[in-house]
């Protein structure tokens, strides 16, 4: 039995997926400890999972909210630079303090989120086996595929290729503060320096929530890359208890935890649903106050709630409106429900582009007006999306947390790369 360390960005979407994976490992008799600044423990609700706070001196209790605010609104270049600086500071902190913390907790292996390279770097320095987990779109680089943070559609023409290359160069230039932090940390840990986030992935096994049928076509993924589908625990969920008219379409809108405060966007969605006379179920994840919730009901929302049982909601809905968080999108696709994606930040533009590419739904700017949202919803409610059925079938047999746990156990047991085609 092993003691796993989980190192991931302190965002609820990453913690949720990794917590589901941790649950499976715990069931199999392993021990799991999450390492991060103390506030991020709030995203863990499975009491069996241990939490080890690090960097209390630099990230005291109460400091996470500011970080989340920045992450929720990185829309202008100034805020984006601040966000990147903050990511770099977090990685620097973890690189400095994780070695002692992991040793003290007698960690045997590390599960490192692709978006937090400190876990990978420290594991390597401590000679611990490490598996990379892509909770967001995989950042594995491949010529001819735009970065996940880019909104571009997939195409082969020379202009698109130049666009992908140019945008990658800009991205890497913007990310230099993080790259420099990682270089310095590598030197201090006695490891050879390397480039950006994408150069800190596991040589043993890389696990991704993103199925091949959802990503853009890829040819260059490593042999030890495993697309296992959504990392979810399979506990049955109680259905929502709201009185919805069974004869009228239902639109479920969720913008995730970080973006749940976007009242203006919810308001446009509510007005669009009223134009079409369809029922709208809004889950704002606690981002809206009571007067705002009341106003949304006035504007035409049928139900406004902080949390809805998501598996039930995406199945009950005829269309899911999302900011393009991979978790919600994968849940909707697992239920075969078409999507309207209004991407805001991070890999959400890339998720939107993939939804459109595979005919799983439509994408609009997050600034889209009531009319555009109504027209898109009308299209989705009336015209079938041909990509949904094949992907739903692929998702049903993807493996999920069980397969991910098998891969992790094999990697730790053998110390050898776990190939996707080989029996575990």
């Amino acid at each position, binding site marked *: 039995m092993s003691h796993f360390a989980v190192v991931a960005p302190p965002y609820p979407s990453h913690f949720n997926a990794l917590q589901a994976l941790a649950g499976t490992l715990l069931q199999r008799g392993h021990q799991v400890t999450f390492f991060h600044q103390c506030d991020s423990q709030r995203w863990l609700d499975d009491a069996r999972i241990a939490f080890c706070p690090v960097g209390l001196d630099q990230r005291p209790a109460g400091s996470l909210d500011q970080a989340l605010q920045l992450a929720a609104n990185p829309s202008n270049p100034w805020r984006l630079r601040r966000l990147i600086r903050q990511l770099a500071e977090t990685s620097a902190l973890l690189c400095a303090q994780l070695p002692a913390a992991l040793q003290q907790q007698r960690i045997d292996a590390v599960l490192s989120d692709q978006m937090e390279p400190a876990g990978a770097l420290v594991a390597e320095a401590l000679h611990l086996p490490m598996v990379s987990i892509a909770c967001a779109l995989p950042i594995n680089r491949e010529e001819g595929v735009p970065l996940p943070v880019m909104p571009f559609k997939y195409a082969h023409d020379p202009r698109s290729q130049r666009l992908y290359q140019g945008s990658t160069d800009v991205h890497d230039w913007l990310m230099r503060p993080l790259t420099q932090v990682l270089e310095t940390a590598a030197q201090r840990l006695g490891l050879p320096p390397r480039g950006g986030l994408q150069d800190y992935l596991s040589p043993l096994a890389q696990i991704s929530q993103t199925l091949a049928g959802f990503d853009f076509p890829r040819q260059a993924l490593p042999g030890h890359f495993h697309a296992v589908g959504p990392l979810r625990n399979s506990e049955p969920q109680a259905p929502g208890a709201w009185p919805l008219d069974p004869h009228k*379409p239902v639109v479920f809108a969720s913008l995730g935890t970080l973006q749940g405060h976007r009242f203006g966007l919810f308001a446009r969605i509510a007005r669009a649903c009223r134009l079409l006379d*369809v029922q709208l179920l809004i889950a704002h994840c606690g981002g809206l106050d009571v007067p705002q919730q009341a106003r949304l009901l006035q504007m035409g929302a049928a139900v406004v709630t902080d949390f809805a049982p998501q598996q039930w909601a995406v199945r009950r809905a005829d269309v899911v409106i999302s900011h393009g968080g991979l978790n919600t999108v994968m849940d909707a696709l697992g239920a075969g429900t078409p999507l309207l994606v209004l991407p805001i930040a991070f890999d959400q533009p890339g998720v939107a582009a993939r939804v459109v590419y595979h005919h799983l739904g439509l994408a609009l700017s997050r600034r889209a007006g009531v009319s555009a949202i109504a027209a898109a919803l009308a*299209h989705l409610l009336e015209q079938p999306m041909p990509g949904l059925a094949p992907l739903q079938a692929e998702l049903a047999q993807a493996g999920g947390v069980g397969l991910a746990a098998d891969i992790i156990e094999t990697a730790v047991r053998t110390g050898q790369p776990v190939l996707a085609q080989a029996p575990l």
Partner: protein
Amino acid sequence: MSHDLILAGGGLANGLIAWRLRQLRPELDVVCLEQQDSLGGNHTWSFHQHDLDHQQQQWLQPLVVRRWPAYHVHFPQLSRRLQSGYASITSERFAQIITPVLGPALRTGCQIQALGPSHVRLDTGEQLQARIVIDGRGAQPSSQRILARQAFLGQVLRLRQPHGLLAPIVMDARVAQGAGYRFVYVLPFTADTLLVEDTHYVERDPPAPELLRANIADYLQAHGWAVAQVLREEQGVLPITLAGDFPRWWAEQGDQPLSGLRAGLFHCTTGYSLPEAVRLADWLATQPLDDAAQLSHNLKHYLSDRWHDQGFYRLLNRMLFLAGRPERRWQVLQRFYQLPEALIARFYAGQSTWRDRLRLLSGKPPVPVGQALRAALRHSPRHYEEPQ
């Protein structure tokens, strides 16, 4: 002397209000001020059977000059008879029935110089006071409402021979298209009289009346109908709402109670105003009508609800009438009239279900989707501002 209610303007909306209040609230002292010599001007108002409920049909019945069990539409590739009743009211009958009922409560030949929520000043200097003044003096332009226009000229004609038509032609688009969507509208009042209207959907200036008269003459000739006499001619411009900002528009009205086109009460896509006028008259009869501020407050909510109810039709207008080349817009209407009859009836009644709405919005429009979407996005008055 102070009245309970002054109705400024004696058109369709205020005429119906005065008449309905006389039926339901005879205790009220109501005065209706009309600038012309008679009530109702020179118009024909029509409605579809399903636009009004049974009770509304009943009280309106004395005004109806003709009912038909069906109507026709004609397009280059589609002719269809819709088995849905259609009815018309003429201003002549309107005045004939309502004028005697109102008696001295109707004052014709009154030029209104100014009015407010509880007073009216005539150009003779006479001041009239009332608990409430309702302004129903026709449509008034506002920068907070973007309108397209349905400009028409109609002639009521007695023909030399019977025309043979049994039901109205609500749209005949088998005619040369102009700067906007053009169609001819025909009502067969009797075996040898017809109302023929030449109608143009235009964003700005309507075509000259001479052109419309010539169009009617061409249409009559094409059908072999020879005119014995022109009995009456009417012309007008029906508003088609594309976009607007209700709170700002209402703020411009300064809490003045309004009715009819002035209140924006018409079907945003078709311009039909009679059903809305009937509903408003019924609604007003349920109001206390003893305080202008209270009525203004209630009316704001009434109009706001109507405005929001019509949002779907404004969206359709933008997608249908701002996108694509004007001379091809008949295709949009041709496609519409291929839809199920019940859907079309609900559309005219402003009662489209969610299923109707999805069907109307999501079908492949004959205009490119990108254009239709860009047009849909022009939902606020500021999207229509002229470049300086």
